[in-house]
């Protein structure tokens, strides 16, 4: 028997809670069969979830590392693994391995800074982990601004948590927007990049950006027009992955492997990569 540790061999996880967030996003709570958290992680890291016979895929861990009881994954239905997960019930076992990738630099770069989180759609999933981490250690950071937009009110992820917890915190400002006017919505209407420009943030902030590629592109442009430097902006990438440890070659962009060297990149680092992500 070969007893070496092998990262490709996963642990068994159990889905203990399924929360319906939006029409196509569900949040799954996962623990090991003996009720513990599968492993520790840092904000922004990912895990490989799989269902034997269906496939394996990389998901960002949406719960904060400060949660020592379980992990959460907010997953949008878009492929075969996610579709299968969406019909899974509480008690279903899956496999889980990780954590993979580099986290957001919450303890060094972010420490003492004002933070600006900008997310679009399911892009809030990877940021939720950082936001809750920063809220947990509130005194280590300056002001926190959160700009979050989605297609409609129903598509806003973690809406309850945002309204009931985040926006109640001192020094945390939440700015929500939806793409099109909707009955029962009296907040801002419009796309995230424009909203960011309208809000006109001070450049004394470190920004963290996640969303669809097109949103990232225009929001970054918006931030730069506001005077932000690329070194102040972080984002997180997503590419197809199989191994999660920089060996299978799939997420290779330039000399970087998104699974191992990312998924968190500073925007000036991204610029050095060939335009292939």
């Amino acid at each position: 028997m070969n007893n070496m540790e092998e990262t490709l061999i996963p642990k068994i996880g159990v889905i203990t809670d399924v929360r319906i967030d939006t029409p196509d996003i569900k949040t799954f709570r996962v623990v090991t069969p003996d009720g513990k958290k599968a492993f520790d992680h840092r904000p922004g890291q990912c895990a490989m979830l799989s269902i034997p016979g269906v496939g394996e895929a990389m998901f960002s861990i949406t719960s904060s590392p400060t949660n020592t009881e379980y992990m959460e994954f907010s997953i949008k239905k878009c492929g075969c693994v996610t579709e299968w997960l969406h019909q899974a019930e509480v008690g279903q076992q899956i496999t889980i391995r990780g954590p993979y990738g580099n986290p957001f630099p919450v303890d060094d770069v972010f420490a003492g800074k004002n933070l600006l989180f900008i997310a679009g759609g399911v892009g809030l999933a990877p940021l939720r982990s950082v936001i809750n981490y920063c809220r947990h250690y509130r005194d280590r950071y300056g002001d926190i601004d959160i700009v979050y937009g989605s297609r409609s009110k129903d598509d806003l992820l973690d809406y309850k948590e945002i309204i009931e917890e985040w926006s109640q915190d001192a020094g945390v400002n939440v700015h929500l927007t939806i793409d099109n006017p909707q009955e029962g919505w009296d907040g801002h209407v419009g796309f995230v990049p424009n909203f960011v420009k309208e809000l006109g943030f001070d450049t004394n902030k470190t920004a963290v950006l996640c969303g669809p590629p097109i949103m990232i592109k225009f929001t970054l442009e918006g931030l730069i027009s506001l005077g932000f430097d690329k070194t102040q902006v972080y984002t997180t990438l997503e590419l197809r992955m199989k191994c999660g440890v920089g060996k299978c070659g799939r997420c290779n962009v330039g000399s970087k492997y998104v699974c191992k060297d990312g998924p968190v990149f500073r925007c000036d680092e991204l610029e050095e990569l060939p335009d292939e992500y």
Partner: protein
Amino acid sequence: MRKVSLDSINKVFGKISESNKLYLPVDGSDGVAVYTEWSEGKEWSNALNTVRSPKDFFFPQVENLMEFKTSGKNIELVDIRDEKEDFVIFGVRACDVRSFDILDRVFLSDPVDSFYASRREHGIIVSVACSKPSETCFCTTFGIDATNPAGDVTAWKTEDSVYFKANTEKGEAFMKKIEDLTEECDDSAVTAQKEKIAKIMEKLPLANLSADAFGGGKTDTFFNAPEWDELSATCLGCGTCTFVCPTCQCYDIKDFNTGNGVIRYRCWDSCMYSEFTKMAHGNNRISQKERFRQRFMHKLVYYPENNEGIFGCVGCGRCLAKCPISMNIVKVMKKIGGNKSE
């Protein structure tokens, strides 16, 4: 240094195979050499090299990783890794020996791939110096000495004898096993052989091919080169180059439902394939040009950037010989690097 007459080489093979599985290039029914387990009657091929590289020994094309049994909502995971036995690969050429180093840097870097590592640990490599290089050879471009290959044991085959020199502890142990069949000798014959081959190497058509234009940090120089369009225009997008390549190491992990369980296995994959990077929300390399570029950029720029300047190519020439459209890394290097070997 020890030697054995070529007539007695099968005795050496017989001796080794008493204790270990022994693989060596043997001519197949179609006359093409292929690594085959030695048994009485099998003859060591005279071919320069095999079509399929020896990377299979450490990184097989298909390898089962684990199994799952599912019942209701429950999953049981079965670790099927077993302890490997020592085996000998005999007759590996210098280029292929280097390819193991290149694979090592991927699979043995943290976190170590235990499947690869256990095979690597148990493999004993007996390399053999080239005596008749082909026009497609260009290992010298990457600083490989075909007359003096690395490996646990280095062998030289002359007209009438095979000479051995152990390089590692594993190699010493190997030599010990065949001590009775070999005799101590000086290295004059080997030196003469080396000199003779070195002269041929100088005359090879690709002898002056240089990779100096490439290396880490050159992404910007080459990534947007206009030549990629032309080079990739007729690429079929097949996986021949990848699968005959001794250093290509991309893989896929897949599940196979057997009807009474699930086998999770990995198999070679190719960055030349259209769905290599395809995911639910799209594909970041949409045309063959991008996929083609990825393969060569990885070998010539990205890999060296991450590995102290070592290129991800060993100049074995397999892709030169086997590409259906004869497009290959040499043509790419010359075109993109503006390097003419003449």
